[in-house]
């Protein structure tokens, strides 16, 4: 058999795959990045672009620590990308808000945070509950219906389309072989080499990292792994460009560096990205106007729906195969938030050939098997 052309082949050219490929290239690996074509269902083109900490980790305390690790690494990550590409992904971390439109919503919010912080092993990330007047000092344009909010100083946001482009430019500059229209039909491991079969031919590598979003569900079993996924649709409403008025991202609403306001936090079951539900977009817009009444006569210029990458329990999956040594799987909802971890922490593990259990053991898909986890 011919020797492998690549040390690692990464499957999936979205944010998770591109961040991982970049991290691997930084470690000196010869990397191929296999991607689908322009019509791929791609969360990286439809996401909301938060780098978000608050609320993460209820039900799996380690996820809070993992998220904070990425949040803390993000500024350095953005700086490295800028040094290599000259592009600014506009990362900002002023802290973020989750607004409540009734006392009941605020109480529910406080309860979630209390339960989250009461978990054993949790890293306290100091999310505060603020009343209307405290919120108004930081967000002067809130409406009278906003009774309060939770605020976390670790939250931030980024221009995620520019992040996507920047990562691709960075991997190109580092010599990663980007291979579009290489949808993987089958993967076999023979004599220590992975053979990946695509309509464009075969690609061989010593290791394989699956970072194909919801498609990991199909790919993981080919290398003795599993990735139970539960995709859901989200819809986003985008306004015309406005002068800056919102200095902090809100979990449902943020003003981009370019001035547009993005609104949206809907969740629907479904995997058809072409479908928009007017009622959902209207509800999002209505809540946005109650939060910020000055948006009432602002023009909406776009709406879109996208499919969230979501694991069975919402927490990331990082795993390595026992039956196919050298095969790894990475799945997560938060490809933006966790991009710094994927590039700077997970990619070096894959380059070394083994996951660091002290950091990622809680994210093994074995947790889905109650008997084994117990």
């Amino acid at each position: 058999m011919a020797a492998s052309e690549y040390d690692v082949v990464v499957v999936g050219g979205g944010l998770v795959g591109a961040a991982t490929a970049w991290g691997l290239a930084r470690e000196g690996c010869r990397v191929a990045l296999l991607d689908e074509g322009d019509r791929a269902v791609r969360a990286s083109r439809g996401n909301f672009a938060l780098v978000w900490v608050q609320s993460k980790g209820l039900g799996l305390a380690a996820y809070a620590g993992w998220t904070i690790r990425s949040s803390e690494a993000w500024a350095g990550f953005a700086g490295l990308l800028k040094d290599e590409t000259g592009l600014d992904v506009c990362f900002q971390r002023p802290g973020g808000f989750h607004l409540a439109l009734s006392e009941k919503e605020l109480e529910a919010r406080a309860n979630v945070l209390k339960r989250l912080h009461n978990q054993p092993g949790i890293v306290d990330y100091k999310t505060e509950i603020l009343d209307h007047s405290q919120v108004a000092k930081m967000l002067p344009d809130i409406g009278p219906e906003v009774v309060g909010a939770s605020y976390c100083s670790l939250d931030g946001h980024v221009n995620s389309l520019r992040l996507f482009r920047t990562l691709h430019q960075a991997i190109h500059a580092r010599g990663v072989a980007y291979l579009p229209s290489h949808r993987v039909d089958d993967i076999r491991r023979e004599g220590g080499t992975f053979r990946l079969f695509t309509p464009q031919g075969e690609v061989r590598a010593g290791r394989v990292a699956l970072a194909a979003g919801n498609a990991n569900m199909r790919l993981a079993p080919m290398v003795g792994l599993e990735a139970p996924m539960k995709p859901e649709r989200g819809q986003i409403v985008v306004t015309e460009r406005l002068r800056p008025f919102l200095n902090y991202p809100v979990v449902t609403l943020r003003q981009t560096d370019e001035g547009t306001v993005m609104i949206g936090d809907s969740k629907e079951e479904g995997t058809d990205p072409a479908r928009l539900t007017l009622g959902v977009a209207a509800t999002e817009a209505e809540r946005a106007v109650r939060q910020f009444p000055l948006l009432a006569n602002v023009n909406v210029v776009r709406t879109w729906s996208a499919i969230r990458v979501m694991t069975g329990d919402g927490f990331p999956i990082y795993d390595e195969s026992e039956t196919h040594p050298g095969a790894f799987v990475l799945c997560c909802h938060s490809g933006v938030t966790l991009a710094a971890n994927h590039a700077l922490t997970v990619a070096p593990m894959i380059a070394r050939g083994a996951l660091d259990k002290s950091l990622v053991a809680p994210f093994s898909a074995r947790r889905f098997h109650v008997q084994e986890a117990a």
Partner: protein
Amino acid sequence: MFKRLHDTPTVTIKVNGQTVRARSGDTVAAALLAAGIDHCRTTPVTGAPRAPYCLMGVCFDCLVTIDGIGNRQGCLVPVREGMEVATQVGKREAGR
């Protein structure tokens, strides 16, 4: 640049506080052009000046503030007596 053929202007509007005479049936964009106003806004990103271009609702280059509401397409709004039009600088301000 433009001059009217024979219609007599009958409607009065204000553009940036100045009185402009227009013909009933003119769009705001047509009235601005007829009055010799050579740009109606600057762009949100580079600040480049823009004037009405396609005059049929497609190009969004004729955006102006009309009666206090920003980013309205001047080519799709007919003039009305007493209308207040303002040219725009950069991004619209939320709330107006």
